[in-house]
């Protein structure tokens, strides 16, 4: 089976993506690895795709999204990096690959994903739920069970599809929805690309909900997953091999949630320590922290979320300012200063 794996990120997450792709290369040297980047390299950083651990780069700008600047402006960094997953997976269905896998840049493989290939022989769409076992503890219910009711049952740090049949139909549908409705707007029932996929088991056939606890282990499901490392060197989760980990919120928040639910299950801390060492090695100091080329207007002034939302909600502004990133006379930025207030 010819498999394409992609991840969507900006340059501030290049270190994480490097680690993900290194681990993918280790276990799957024959898979095609694609970096989907919605960004431009910062000055002072030389981006050489040939020396990166992926096979090719696709720039979001080249996905054929109509009125790209205006469309991009309507999203913050998380919204847009999740929104472009739809157009890419839709294109990838006609790339010659038999199956496409998406993995978030902050995931990393700890063993082969080969069993997924077997599942894709029988199914067209694979999803991993945030939770595969219910919690009983009140804090865990609040943190995990209720939280996922707001943000989506399935974690879209992973999705895998066949490029034909129901897989292709899903890709087309997801593309269409994400181009118009990929926003972090929980009161309106949206949480970027993720809430949409709550519909998947109802809208599509040949869907497999992967409940194997070895996939997509993260702080939000550690309360029901115990990690062990045998003398044979195999890392297991609830007795089955650990396949990939989702290192959500690298930093103080991720540490706090991990400690809350790992407790004394110390192999969890070994895995995090390993990941942090790899991230340190993969970090290029010439990329400024929190860098994003589309986080500011042309003159360098940061774009506020409220300005993006205003532009998103006003078709007249979209029509009047097709490139809202521009600065100077006749720009959306100027309009904001004079009229937007």
């Amino acid at each position, binding site marked *: 089976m010819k498999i394409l794996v992609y991840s969507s990120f900006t340059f501030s997450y290049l270190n994480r993506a490097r680690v993900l792709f290194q681990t993918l290369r280790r276990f799957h040297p024959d898979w095609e690895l694609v970096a989907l980047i919605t960004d431009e390299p910062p000055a002072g950083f030389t981006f050489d795709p040939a020396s990166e651990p992926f096979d090719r780069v696709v720039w979001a700008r080249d996905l054929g999204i109509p009125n790209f600047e205006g469309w991009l402006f309507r999203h913050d960094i998380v919204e847009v990096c999740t929104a472009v997953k739809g157009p890419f997976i839709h294109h990838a269905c006609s790339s010659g690959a038999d199956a496409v896998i998406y993995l978030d840049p902050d995931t990393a493989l700890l063993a082969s994903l080969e069993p997924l290939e077997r599942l894709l022989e029988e199914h067209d769409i694979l999803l991993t739920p945030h939770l595969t076992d219910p919690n009983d503890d009140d804090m865990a219910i609040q943190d995990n069970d209720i939280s996922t009711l707001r943000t989506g049952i399935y974690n879209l740090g992973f999705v895998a599809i066949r490029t034909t049949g129901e897989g292709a139909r899903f890709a087309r549908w997801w593309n269409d929805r994400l181009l118009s409705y990929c926003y972090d707007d929980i009161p309106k029932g949206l949480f970027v690309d993720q809430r949409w996929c709550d519909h998947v088991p109802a809208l599509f056939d040949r869907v497999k909900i992967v409940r194997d606890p070895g996939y997509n282990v993260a702080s939000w499901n550690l309360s029901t997953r115990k990690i062990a*490392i045998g003398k*044979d*060197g195999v890392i297991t989760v609830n007795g089955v091999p650990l396949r990939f980990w989702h290192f959500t919120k690298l930093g103080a928040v991720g540490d706090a949630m991990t400690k809350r639910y790992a*407790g004394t299950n110390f*192999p969890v801390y070994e895995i995090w320590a390993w990941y942090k060492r790899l991230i340190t090695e993969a970090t290029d100091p010439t990329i400024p922290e929190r860098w994003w080329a589309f986080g500011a207007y042309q003159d360098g002034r940061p774009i506020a979320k409220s300005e993006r939302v205003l532009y998103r909600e006003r078709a007249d502004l979209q029509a009047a300012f097709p490139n809202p990133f521009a600065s100077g006379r006749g720009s959306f930025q100027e309009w904001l200063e004079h009229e937007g207030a």
Partner: protein
Amino acid sequence: MSGSARSLARRIAARLLKRGDEDRRLVAAHFDAAYYLASNPDVASAGGDPLSHFLAHGWREGRDPHARFSVQGYLDNNPDVAAAGVNPFVHYLRQGRHEARPSAQTLGFRYQAISRLAPIGDQIAAATQASAAVQVGSAQALAKALGRARTGLAHLHITFSHDDYRTKVGGLQLCLQQEAVGLANRGHDHLHLFPARPWPVLRATGEAGGLEVLLNGESLGVYAGATVAEVLATAGPTGRRSFAIHSLLGHAADETCAIVEAAGLSAGFYWLHDYASVCAGFHLLRDGVQDCGAPPLDSGACSICVYGPARTRHTAAHAQLFRRLSLTVVSPSEPTLATWRQGGDLPAAGAMVHPHATLAPRGPASASEGPLRVAYLGFPVAHKGWPIFRELALAHEGDDRYAFLHLGAQPEPGLPVAFHEVKVGPGKPRAMLEALETHAVDVVLMWPLWRETFSFALYEAIAAGCAVVTGPDSGNIAAVVAADARGWVLPDEAALGAAFADGRLAELSRATRKPMLYDLTLSGMTLDLIAAEAPV
């Protein structure tokens, strides 16, 4: 500043002072000054008030106010307190204890050990940097110094290890002390080589690092390995010569081979005091916290382990060493040899078991009265199982079924543990054995995280009539305890905790067991093997 602003500033300053005084009074009631000073020798030597130090600086530096409160543990468990930037002990006393927030580190000592792990590359870089600064002597200087040799180096035994056996304390060092005594008795020369600066791993070819040279227990200074080889190659007529490798940490395999060959040798002995020939993590402790069992290098365990990236440094260097020299592997115990065989396939000339010590009965022990006396022996370090003993002692403080003792050279203060200083060394080889008898210890808790290759402490405990309680990953300890019914091998730490809690441990009292006492006789180490091959 206006008058009202000045008044506000004065009021704020006064409030802060008042709050500081309240904090001080609150903390003072629970602060263990003796513990603080003993745990922080730098504070003790600087003088000054320990409470003031804790309130001003100590808590920010992760220093604990007493043995039961972990500053770091409290911050780890309470990100809101960490974010607020307040003194965690003050927060606990004011608020946390009323909210049932735990005061101790609840993530376990292994979490703390993992959080302190430095990448092996950083450790190697630090050793490289330290070694680069070492000044080495000339060949002429070394040749002149070697003129003090007993036999002009004709009858010469060369040993390699990671440190100075004369001043460092441990089983390996004791072995070398034995060899040194044996060689002195025979009137032979003993040349001992160890890295001038400590190394966490073997040196690779080209990584600089001077060797300190000891001749018959006297330091001749630091020299490059090539210089040692050069001088040995031109030393006078050779007689009975031999060599033994006790540890290669800080040595480069090709350099070691060159030194041995310069002395006209190729056949010698390689001791298994640890598992450095299997992995750079020579205790076979994955990330320093759990016995790994030496799984395949491409396993998930080795992939995440801090030592994984350096494992081939050790296996490749040892392969080179074993191919170039004719080495007989000597293990102090059967399980150690089995682990070594499982961990690789080095082309050894032979392999044998030669215990460091043997036991001979010397009569029954006297029974003791009172609570069960449970002891920990040696340095209070994690890989020897100190945190496990520490937790049990804290959990059973005030429990009149048990008395906890620590026999060793270095105490941890502030614990419900009676510390008795015991220093085993040249001239006092029986110090631990005698202390165990004097204090009528019933049970020695030996819960090392790693597979002990021999463990003198095990034999000292048995010789003194103590029962030994250990875990499944303790190597020779578990093997001896199980084979000779010297105590219990429990499946895990939960079972250990249960045995203390339900009192079943009392079955191991001297009164119930009526144990035998033994004499402990140390072997001659490598000299026994040389004698066997070529009697003097």
